[in-house]
């Protein structure tokens, strides 16, 4: 049990995919303009991670080493298609604002990285906790980044205006704001872990 909790904790804090491993930065930069988007992206990626980790780890002895990457991609793409169709059916607005970045989870380096580095070498139960941990870590990072960007760049939290007279800084909604926020947050995380 302790080991499983360690796998969970690892993804959230020690090896947080965004702040410690610096993986999956492309969707992080692109969709973190509002908390809703960030959270939606995080949940979608978590689902894919969980699903692909389960299947990859249970099939790890069947997949030939030489063609493992194409096999992983097929498995991941299956789950991405499921997520995409569910999102289109039940959350059309979210699906529209996330746009191309939902199908692009297929090539998300967190998902592929976990399949290659963890699920293909460990048992199913361990892989479930690893996928959950990484997914939660990714979601938390996305929510944190998008909250900062939404508050400063749009003056809102979850679409609600906080202070009427606050004039938002457009920069945080645009690409340079995303890079700045991620850079500063990674700096803070490094500073805190060094201590």
């Amino acid at each position: 049990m302790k080991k499983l909790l360690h796998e969970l904790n690892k993804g959230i804090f020690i090896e947080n995919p965004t702040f410690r491993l610096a993986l999956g930065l492309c969707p992080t930069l692109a969709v973190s303009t509002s908390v809703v988007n960030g959270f939606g992206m995080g949940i979608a990626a978590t689902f894919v991670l969980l699903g692909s980790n389960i299947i990859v780890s249970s099939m790890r002895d069947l997949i030939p080493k030489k063609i493992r990457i194409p096999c992983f991609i097929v498995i991941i793409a299956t789950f991405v298609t499921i997520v995409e169709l569910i999102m289109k059916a039940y959350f059309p607005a979210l699906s529209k604002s996330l746009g191309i970045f939902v199908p692009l989870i297929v090539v998300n380096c967190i998902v592929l990285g976990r399949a290659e580095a963890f699920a293909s070498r460990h048992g199913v139960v361990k892989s479930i906790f690893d996928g959950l941990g990484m997914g939660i870590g990714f979601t938390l990072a996305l929510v944190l980044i998008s909250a900062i960007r939404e508050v400063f760049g749009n003056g809102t939290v979850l679409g609600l205006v906080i202070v009427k007279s606050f004039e938002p800084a457009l920069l945080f909604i645009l690409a340079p704001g995303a890079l700045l926020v991620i850079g500063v947050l990674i700096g803070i995380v490094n500073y805190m872990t060094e201590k």
Partner: protein
Amino acid sequence: MPSNNLTVTPSPHIKSPLSARKIMYLVILALLPAGAAGIYIFGLCSLKVMLISIISCVISEVIFLKLRNRDPKTILDGSAILTGLLLAYSMPPELPFWIPIVGGVVSIVLGKQIFGGLGHNIFNPALVGRTFLQISWPVYMTTWKNPKWAVDAISSATPLAKEGARSFSYLDLFLGNHGGCIGEVCILALVIGALFLIFTKIISLHIPASFIGTVMVLAWIFGGEGSFNGDFIFHLLAGGLVLGAFFMATDYVTCPLTRKGKIIFGIGCGVLTVLIRLRGSYPEGVSYAILFMNAVVPLIDRYTKTRVYGISKK
């Protein structure tokens, strides 16, 4: 301790009486005429922007130095004051009071201290602050105030914006009788300051000359209807070219080390400035051009390394 005076240290020996601190204050001194001109042209509101910006820079520098456990006395080197002054010079004269405050904090914290303080910053801090403001609050940063003796009180575009072009005589542009940023409008005052810096050998002519030269040549070729028809004097006098070329691009920390590198740097700045001015969506490109070239300085330095004496090329 007399014995200490005889200690022989390995070369290089510092023989110049100039220190970083002295250079900072001399550059501030050279910038003063342009500031005075800005106050004279736009009124006391520009003095307010300058003071707020400098105070904001100095306070954020002191706080950050304390956070990083550095000696807060470092503030006396004047670099924060210079950053604040340059930042104010690249802002319109009439602004809500909090814009220069935010600009100062961004310049010092994001532009300088995060990289490790003076000497470690990749980008010109004042331009980082200015660009941050320009992208964040474009409306405030492009609402220009007319000179106080102008007939109509409606704020107008700067000469570089398309609709404002060509309605100013060269003399108006040279003396600063038009809307613009506080420190960039009066070319006469800037030239006085620049000449002072050149004669005291604080800056060399390599960057400003190649920068301005490139802008003028390219503006002459591509700036008008057809080729070789552009109004290059207009491109020299309008906008922030003179301020940027003499006072911002020549920042010791963020420009290349060798002469050849400096010339490449200046030409790059010039090409980008003209490109943004003529083809970009912003009317003015000096600040973006300098920031962009700041980013490639390490590359330039690497390819213009001078040959070590006595060592063959390969």
